[in-house]
């Protein structure tokens, strides 16, 4: 019997939502790690009971937890993220050089091929890898040291490496994205990297077509077609058909192309989801109406999905890692809001309902499809 497990990271702890394949009745467990920010949780695709959780606080810093029983119990693993060599500097908000300084893990990405290997995207932006289930971490320093690092600068949320995509057809290929540096690709398992930002245009940086400096909010791919990438940039929804070598805009008829999340349907590589947010200075839906937009044409033509979502007085945000999609035949879509709601659709977005209404602000949502 199939079921789903939704992993929700919030400002004040983690929550695990579980349901059978119908996804109409839910059990909620938590808060796990009560009172502490959980930036992200994710499970191994090889062993779904192996989960990682990123806990951080301004008081006590970063702690990494691992569960080997699907989130029933957790144990701390290594929180030692040491930049390789002399870290050097990146740009600070005012353009002055600023030393690289570890702050937190934004995203875990467990390996598709080895259960003990997991990647961590951190702030200040860098990519780390563990090959022992999180007991130790090593920086893949070729990313930070490939040459453009001194020109990277933080977005408002910090200089974070927030997206890690592993190519299921090519174990040597990894995509990552950094706010505000852009997207990068490695074709040698993380040893060397190139910026892949051609075609991005960002009016908020001195050279709108610069090689780096773009505030990429999130990137998604469909595993059956990993050369096609979908990006929600600060402004603009973008697409690449050549593994990031070049990008073109697919915002089309979206009412606003600012936003944070982007994701792809489990079975339809050209069906894409975003949640438009009013603007870079007003982080809430247009006109107080929460809507997911879906394109079934790989972009440009978008339809609003609103059934079951609040259509008045809604002023929440949906953060970059707060949307996930399950793999059941009727594809489930989930997203969390800064207002503490987690919405679920068991029919690819046509109908929505709130699984929970009153959690702390949701930072991240991941879903596991279990059998």
């Amino acid at each position, binding site marked *: 019997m199939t079921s789903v497990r939704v992993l929700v990271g919030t400002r004040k702890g983690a929550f695990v939502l579980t349901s059978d394949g119908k996804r109409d009745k839910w059990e909620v467990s938590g808060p796990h790690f009560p009172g502490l920010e959980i930036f992200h949780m994710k499970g191994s695709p090889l062993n779904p009971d192996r989960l990682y959780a990123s806990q951080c606080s301004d*008081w*006590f*810093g*970063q702690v990494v937890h691992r569960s080997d029983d699907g989130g029933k119990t957790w144990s701390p693993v290594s*929180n030692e993220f040491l930049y390789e060599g002399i870290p050097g500097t990146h740009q600070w908000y005012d353009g002055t050089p600023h030393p690289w300084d570890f702050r937190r893990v934004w995203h875990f990405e467990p390996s598709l091929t080895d259960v003990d290997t997991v990647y961590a995207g951190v702030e200040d932006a860098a990519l780390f890898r563990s090959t022992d289930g999180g007991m130790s971490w090593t920086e893949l320093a070729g990313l930070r040291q490939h040459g453009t690092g001194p020109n990277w600068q933080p977005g408002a949320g910090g200089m974070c490496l927030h997206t890690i995509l592993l190519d299921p057809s090519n174990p040597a290929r990894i995509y990552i994205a950094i706010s505000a540096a852009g997207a990068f690709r490695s074709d040698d398992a993380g040893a060397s990297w190139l910026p892949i930002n051609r075609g991005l245009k960002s009016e908020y940086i001195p050279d709108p077509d610069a090689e780096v400096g773009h505030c990429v909010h999130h990137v998604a791919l469909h595993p059956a077609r990993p050369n096609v990438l979908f990006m929600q940039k600060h402004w603009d929804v973008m697409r690449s058909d050549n593994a990031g070598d070049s990008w073109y805009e697919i915002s089309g008829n979206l009412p606003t192309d600012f936003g944070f999340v982007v994701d792809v349907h489990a079975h339809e590589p050209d069906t894409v989801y975003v949640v438009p947010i009013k603007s870079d200075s007003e982080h809430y839906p247009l006109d107080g109406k929460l809507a997911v937009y879906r394109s079934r044409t790989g972009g440009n033509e978008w339809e609003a999905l609103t059934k079951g979502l609040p259509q008045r007085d809604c002023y929440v945000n949906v953060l970059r890692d707060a949307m996930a999609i399950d793999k059941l035949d009727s594809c489930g879509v989930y997203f969390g809001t800064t207002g503490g709601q987690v919405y679920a659709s068991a029919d690819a977005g046509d109908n929505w309902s709130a699984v929970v209404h009153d959690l702390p602000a949701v930072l991240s949502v991941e879903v596991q499809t279990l059998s």
Partner: protein
Amino acid sequence: MIRVRLPTHLRRLAGSGAEVTIEVSGPVTQRSVLDALEARYPMLRGTIRDQVTQQRRPFVRFFACQEDLSHDSPDALLPDAVAAGTEPFLVVGAIAGG
């Protein structure tokens, strides 16, 4: 025997009670107490002081005998009462709203 009192989040992480006891050989200083604490509870590494610089995290304070010792040298001797185990060394999360 040195008594160390931990804040709630660190108690949960360490799986301990409010107060733990550790043995310190040699001079009883912030550094030697925290070294012994982290040796006994390795999951606390990085939560009280930076793993590289060994500096106290900004929102963590050290109190003992009604004194704020946060800005003392990590190698300064702690009060005799802490060294004797009659008073605890307090690790405190600084007050902050929200």
